């Protein structure tokens, strides 16, 4: 079990050694976002902007305009919501090389409560032109995402989590490609598209379903934008039913994005597992996942339901 934010911090510190052009900004959260490792190793290339997320994002744009590869980190609520207009005008409109790498996304932020649980960030980030949106599923993938982000020119939103989560990529040679989904388990009765920590829960769900003879395909859709439309359509056609699973509102996130593709290209029964248009509350990550329906059991119910709806 490793938190994706920890993998981010380690990757960043290593990249700092390899690439002197990388600079990192944080808004008074370097210990929580794990940019502290980079800060310690490369103090001259680390800028703590204090509690000023809007300033941080536009400053990041200025650094990028002058040729730097910039990582700007804070909690997901602040990096997306608090600074949305700055992300829109200073970063997305300008297509500058700023990576907004946020941690504490979703309900598993836990005890801090609703104000700190970003359940809407995927929706508002993917609505921005020029923005690439990535939600890594585990620590191994996070490491690959950060390394790819350095090579990729342009704005990127990378969504990371607070709690330790299972490592589901045991092959260190796993090849991560921006915009290309990963089939993690074969199956022909239905497809579960998941992102972030829900990929692990989707794999658990598929295991439970297998016991009752249902073969569920599991796809890790780490890139919400640009979306792997071809893979989504093929899976829908081959399995005839789709479930999405995300630690985010069912409005406008992974479920919304997949629904848009299905309706236009391959209408099949669809069920969305996620936060049901409500704010969260304080609690432990596990308690909250259970209370808000982000469990393997919930995914199992959804898969059974969509299979029933097949013609």
């Amino acid at each position, binding site marked *: 079990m490793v938190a994706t934010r920890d993998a981010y911090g380690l990757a960043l510190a290593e990249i700092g050694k390899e690439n002197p052009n990388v600079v990192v900004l944080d808004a008074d959260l370097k210990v929580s976002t794990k940019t502290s490792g980079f800060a310690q190793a490369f103090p001259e290339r680390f800028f703590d902007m*204090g509690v*000023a997320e809007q*300033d941080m994002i*536009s*400053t990041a744009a*200025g650094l*990028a*305009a*002058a040729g730097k590869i910039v990582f700007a980190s804070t909690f997901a609520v602040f990096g997306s919501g608090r600074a949305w207009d700055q992300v829109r005008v200073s970063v997305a409109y*300008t297509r500058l090389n700023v990576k907004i790498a946020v941690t504490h996304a979703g309900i598993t932020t836990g005890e801090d409560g609703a104000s700190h649980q970003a359940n809407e960030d995927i929706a508002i980030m993917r609505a921005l032109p020029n923005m690439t949106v990535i939600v890594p599923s585990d620590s191994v993938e996070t490491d690959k995402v950060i390394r790819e982000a350095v090579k990729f020119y342009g704005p990127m939103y990378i969504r990371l989590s607070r709690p330790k989560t299972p490592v589901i990529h045991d092959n260190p040679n796993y090849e991560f490609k921006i915009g290309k989904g990963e089939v993690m388990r074969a199956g022909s009765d239905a497809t579960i598209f998941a992102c972030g920590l829900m990929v692990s829960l989707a794999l658990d769900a598929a295991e439970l379903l297998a016991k009752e003879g249902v073969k569920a395909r599991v796809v890790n859709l780490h890139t919400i934008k640009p979306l792997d439309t071809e893979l989504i359509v093929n899976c829908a056609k081959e399995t005839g039913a789709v479930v999405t699973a995300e630690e985010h509102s069912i409005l406008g996130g992974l479920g919304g994005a997949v629904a848009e593709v299905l309706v236009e290209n391959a209408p099949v029964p669809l069920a969305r597992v996620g936060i049901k248009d409500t704010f969260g509350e304080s609690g432990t990550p596990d308690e909250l996942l259970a209370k808000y329906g982000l469990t393997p059991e919930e995914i199992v119910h959804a898969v059974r339901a969509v299979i029933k709806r097949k013609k």
Partner: protein
Amino acid sequence: MISKEKTAELEAIAIKLRKHVVEMTCAAASGHPGGSLSAADIITVLYFHQLRKDPKDPHWAERDRFVMSKGHAAPILYAALAEAGYFPVDYLKTLRRIGSSLQGHVDMLSLPGVEMSTGSLGQGLSAANGMALAYHLDKKAGRIYCLLGDGECQEGQVWEAAMTAAHYKLDNLTAIVDHNKFQIDGPVEKIKSLTPFADKWRAFGWHVLLCDGHKIEAIADALEKAEKTKGRPTMIIADTVKGKGVSFMEASPLDFHGKAPTEEEKDKALEELCRREKK
């Protein structure tokens, strides 16, 4: 000190830029003439005296950079870029037309020479800080300039950026406020007071200079002093008049914040500017 000849040359350019602003906004039938005209002399001194730049190589790595934080004053920047040779003067008439690089608010991707896209107020100073930080890191000699509106200073982000620039001792940054004292809804002091404006910047750790924003020598002198200041950023509060150079706009600045002159008004304005040109 700037020479008498250079001053006279710059004064003539400033009138030329003002004529472009009047013509472009009239042709576009929209745009922001008032806040463009108030900034005309500042922009003239920057683009024809102060900035180290190469219009034939707009991306020259060592250049000085200018961020137009009050992005609605796009017409005056476009006029300066055209006269400086970034693109043909004739292109100015495409302002705000569909497909044109001369967007309503400045867009760095569509127009070389524009260093940052703005339009949503309050973001430019932060971006200028970012450039100044990068230049410090890379030990570049170039300077960063940023022009803000006074109404714009009601945005909280401006003061976040003010703290950042002082904290990081960005002495390669010169910011200028086009202090024309009017915003869309009325006089700035009446809508939401900035007083004591200069003291606010001083309290935030800036070196503050006050100057007549319509006197070429005064602007040039302030920019020179800013360049010599070490260890902190400089803010030049330029006292300006909204609509400067066109008397009927000066007389009713609120009517010409975001409204273009009609054909008739344009002719009247050009006539007045031509008269000044001949003096």
